C-alpha cells in the first residue's frame, strides 16, 4: 500500500515538474516581450503548495525568482494581481528575503513594502499562520 502511494506521488511530482517547465518556457517568452507583469502572474498561478516534494518547490522558486527580479515598475503590477496571487507572492517574497542574496533581498524588500501598503498586514498574517501550504 505504501509502495503504490509513493509511486503515485513520484508520478505527481514528475507531472508537476513537467508543468513547471512548460510554465517556465511560457514565462521566458513573456519576459522577452517585456510583459513582466504577465510573466509574474504565469509563474505564480498553480504553484505547488503541498509540502511533499522539495524539487518541485525549488523549480517553481527559481522561476518565480526570475520573474520577480525582472519587475521594474512595482505599482503597475498590483492592478492585475488577484488576492490569491497576492498571498502566493507574499510567500515567495519571504522566501526571497531568507536567501540573503543582496539583489534578491533589495528587490523583495521593495515589492514587500508596496504589497503591504496595498493588501494590508492580513496577507503577512496569512503567511505566518499557514503552516500547511508552504512555498
Amino acid at each position, binding site marked *: 500500500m505504501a509502495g503504490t502511494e509513493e509511486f503515485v506521488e513520484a508520478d505527481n511530482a514528475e507531472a508537476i515538474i513537467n508543468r513547471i517547465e512548460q510554465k517556465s518556457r511560457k514565462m521566458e517568452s513573456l519576459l522577452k516581450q517585456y510583459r513582466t507583469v504577465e510573466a509574474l502572474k504565469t509563474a505564480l498561478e498553480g504553484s505547488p503548495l503541498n509540502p511533499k516534494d522539495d524539487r518541485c518547490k525549488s523549480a517553481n522558486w527559481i522561476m518565480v525568482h526570475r520573474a520577480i527580479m525582472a519587475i521594474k515598475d512595482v505599482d503597475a503590477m498590483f492592478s492585475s494581481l488577484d488576492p490569491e496571487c497576492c498571498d502566493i507572492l507574499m510567500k515567495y517574497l*519571504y522566501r526571497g*528575503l*531568507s*536567501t*540573503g*542574496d*543582496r539583489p534578491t*533581498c*533589495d528587490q523583495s*524588500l*521593495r515589492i*514587500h*513594502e508596496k504589497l*503591504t501598503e496595498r493588501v494590508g*498586514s*492580513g496577507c*503577512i*498574517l496569512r*503567511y*505566518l*499562520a*499557514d*503552516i500547511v501550504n*508552504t512555498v
Partner: protein
Amino acid sequence: MSNSLRLYLACIRNTLDAALCLQNFPCQEVERHNKPEVELKTSSELLLNPVLICRNEAEKCLIETSINSLRISLKVKQADELENILTKKFLRFLSMRAEAFQVLRRKPVQGYDISFLVTNYHCEEMQKHKLIDFIVQFMEDIDKEISELKMSVNTRGRLVATEFLKQFM
C-alpha cells in the same frame, strides 16, 4: 537614512505589526504553569512560521512567533575585526542588564547578536505600537553607536600613539 535601510526597517515593522498578536495561554503539559511557547517549542500547533528577513549577507533578522510570545533575533553588520569586538562587548553589556529593558533576552539565539522576547504580559502592560517603535529604533541606534565607538577607539589610539612617539622625536 539610506533607502535599503528604510525598506528593511519598514519590512520588519510591518511583519512585527502582523506577528504581535499574543494572548495568554497556560502551559498544556504542566498545570498551573505559564511559559513562553516560542522558547519551549513543545507543541507545533502553537507555533507560527518563523520569518527570516535578510538585508544582505551580513545583516538579518529572525522573527519567531507563537500564541503567547514572540522572539526577535538580530544580526548586526560587522565590517571588520574591531567592529566585531565592539559589537560583542556592547551587546553583551546590554544583555547583562536585560531586566532593565524587560523585553530583552539574556542570551542571544545561536547565530545572532542580540535577541528580544516579547510575551503577552508585555503586550498587556505596554502599547503594541510603542514596543514595535522601540525595537525598530533600537536597530537604527545600534549602527550609530557602533560607529561612534569605533571612531572614539581610533581617535584615542591615534592620540596615545602620537604622545608616546613624541619622546623619540
